[in-house]
């Protein structure tokens, strides 16, 4: 237990120091996607629901944050909260439809509904369509911290991330998390014990959507943009890939996966052009065929094996 705390401490220290060494905007992007992937993992890893349209929450929240800050003049913190709530509300709508089916149907329905929202955003006047919602001011946090400064913004984003990460961690280890686990293990039995399974799944979905929304809103703040890309199904695929690569159902997997993919895309985009897609696809295939536990999962298994070997 103590060791775990020390581990978290070291990680936090590293993240606090990161912008001194790394390009802060890139690290912020990684944090946004890490948060997004963690939110996604709450569903796939701990509830067993594969939502293949999760980008819709990222995108929706991005627009809500962008619009409320730019047009209505919300302060950034309020914009973020409004966006997360909007994403959660959308999560409630999509979730209530999708949980009527399970398994891959669930995946297909979330994907299709997300695509519908994508078309909606494409045509809705407030999104700027293909141009996106540009030039969102970063504003002043609590009225006095100027977020236009990359470093100020970085620590704000880090704080948002740490809060959300803590919340996910807490959810997994809560009475609610315990029921989710039971549902994943044996749904029929959970029903027969009197649990209204649909409601639990829905709450998990709404939580995940809200947190994904938080990620999207934060991203809007970082890039001063809300774009259609964020709502596109490719982004949904990306978050699946991040989580899969990092390790589904592990606490840190999504973070590692997001960092890897974002860095990789950043590095590769200029070097191999359109082959980036091929490489992403290949990572998918390799992960599914040989590497299903993901980076963190495999390392964990290795660590256990070593302990076992010694003991």
């Amino acid at each position, binding site marked *: 237990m103590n060791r775990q705390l020390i581990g978290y401490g070291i990680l936090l220290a590293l993240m606090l120091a990161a912008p001194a060494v790394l390009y802060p905007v890139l690290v912020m992007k990684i944090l946004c996607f890490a948060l997004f992937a963690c939110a996604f993992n709450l569903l796939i890893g701990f509830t067993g629901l594969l939502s293949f349209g999760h980008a819709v929450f990222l995108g929706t929240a991005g627009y809500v944050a962008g619009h409320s800050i730019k047009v209505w003049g919300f302060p950034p913190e309020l914009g973020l909260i409004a966006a997360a709530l909007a994403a959660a509300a959308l999560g409630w709508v999509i979730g209530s439809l999708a949980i009527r089916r399970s398994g891959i149907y669930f995946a297909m329905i979330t994907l299709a509904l997300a695509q519908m929202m994508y078309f909606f955003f494409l045509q809705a006047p407030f999104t700027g369509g293909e141009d996106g919602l*540009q030039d969102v001011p970063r504003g002043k946090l609590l009225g006095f911290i100027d977020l236009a400064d990359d470093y100020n913004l970085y620590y704000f984003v880090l704080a948002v991330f740490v809060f959300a990460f803590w919340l996910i961690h807490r959810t997994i280890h809560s009475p609610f998390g315990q029921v989710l686990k039971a549902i994943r293990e044996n749904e029929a039995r959970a029903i027969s014990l009197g649990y209204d399974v649909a409601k639990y799944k829905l709450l998990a979905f709404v939580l995940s959507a809200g947190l994904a929304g938080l990620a999207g809103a934060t991203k809007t703040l970082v890039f001063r943009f809300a774009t259609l890309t964020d709502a596109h199904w490719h982004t949904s695929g990306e978050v699946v890939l991040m989580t899969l690569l990092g390790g589904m159902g592990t606490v840190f997997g999504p973070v590692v996966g997001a960092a890897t993919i974002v860095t990789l895309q950043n590095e590769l985009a200029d070097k191999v052009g359109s082959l980036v897609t091929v490489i992403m696809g290949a990572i998918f295939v390799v992960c599914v065929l040989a590497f299903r536990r993901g980076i963190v999962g495999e390392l964990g298994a290795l660590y256990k094996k070593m302990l076992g070997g010694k003991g």
Partner: protein
Amino acid sequence: AQKGAAKLSGDMVKIGVLTDMSGVYSDLGGQGSVTAAQMAIDDFKAQAKPSWKIELVYADHQNKADVGSNKAREWYDTQGVDMITDALNSAVALAVSKVTLEKKRILLDTGAASTRLTNEDCSPNTVHYVYDTYALANGPGKAVTKQGKDSWYFLTADYAFGHSLEKDTMDAVKANGGKVIGAVRHPLNASDFSSFLLQAQASKAKVVGLANAGGDTINSIKAANEFGLTKTQTIVGLLTTIIDIHALGLPTTQGMMFTEGFYWNLNNETREWSRKFFGKHKKMPSMLHAGTYSAVMTYLKAVQATGTDEADAVMKHLKATTINDMFAKGGKIREDGRMVHDMYLVEVKKPAESKEPWDYYNIKAVIPGSEAFQPMSLSRCPLVKK
């Protein structure tokens, strides 16, 4: 003349080609733009023998404004890039233009179409170099209407670029005594256009204007052929380039009319340069490629002339220069950032007329720069003093 005295950040000039390397517009700009920029650098080095280094970087913005602005930001912040060019896709261009202003560098945009770049979103650090929706709309809007084909129906890509192209063309049509019967909006990247074309057919308009681009244009034209629209109505692809014609082939596209900013087979100068380009790229240049070459060359000359890569000084010099090269004759950069040069109204040849591969156009008219682009009097750019 001031070779030794150059004061350059990082002791070199770094040029970034920010383009679509893999998406719908990658054939329009893409690798070809990188090639063109590199050619300009090589030619400049050979001609001017600068004492300073020139470096070229390029990146794929994937048609995502956020990717583009992020990349631009990163280039400016961490790589010391002095000038970005290409930047096709209006959304990306607008975003990059803002970052460029914030970081005080230069954007010579050769790829984007939206007139916003020189109107409400104009910037002292941005030059709109090759074409815009106004120029695209104006040529055919006028010429075709004047031919007596005076009733128009529009097939419009349902997003900002399409809307602005549609609006600009409608204005041109009306200004020349034509009338607009209607318009149908289609989603970007639609897979099937037949139903929209049926509506266009049912409208009985004489002209069907395609206010879309890339794959959408190609698809619309194919479907128009299949439904026999081409027999009874005139199809005008408002943003059509030689790349699209090449993809569709002459039998399908013959007789189409549109505005181009460049044609390789225009004169000896263009032919010479284009053949050289063809040798490297295996395709003839689009107006973007030629424009990118011209922009990079012009920029490098300006840096040499001013002896600095500091944006304000270079911009000032640029705006005072007259551009004379294979791409533009007497080109001028206006206060709002618009580079004004001649455009061409072209008509696609019949297959029988084409004497060699890529011999596709008959030049119907040269539209002088002063007519091709939006006059300053109409500009909504705050930089323009009225």
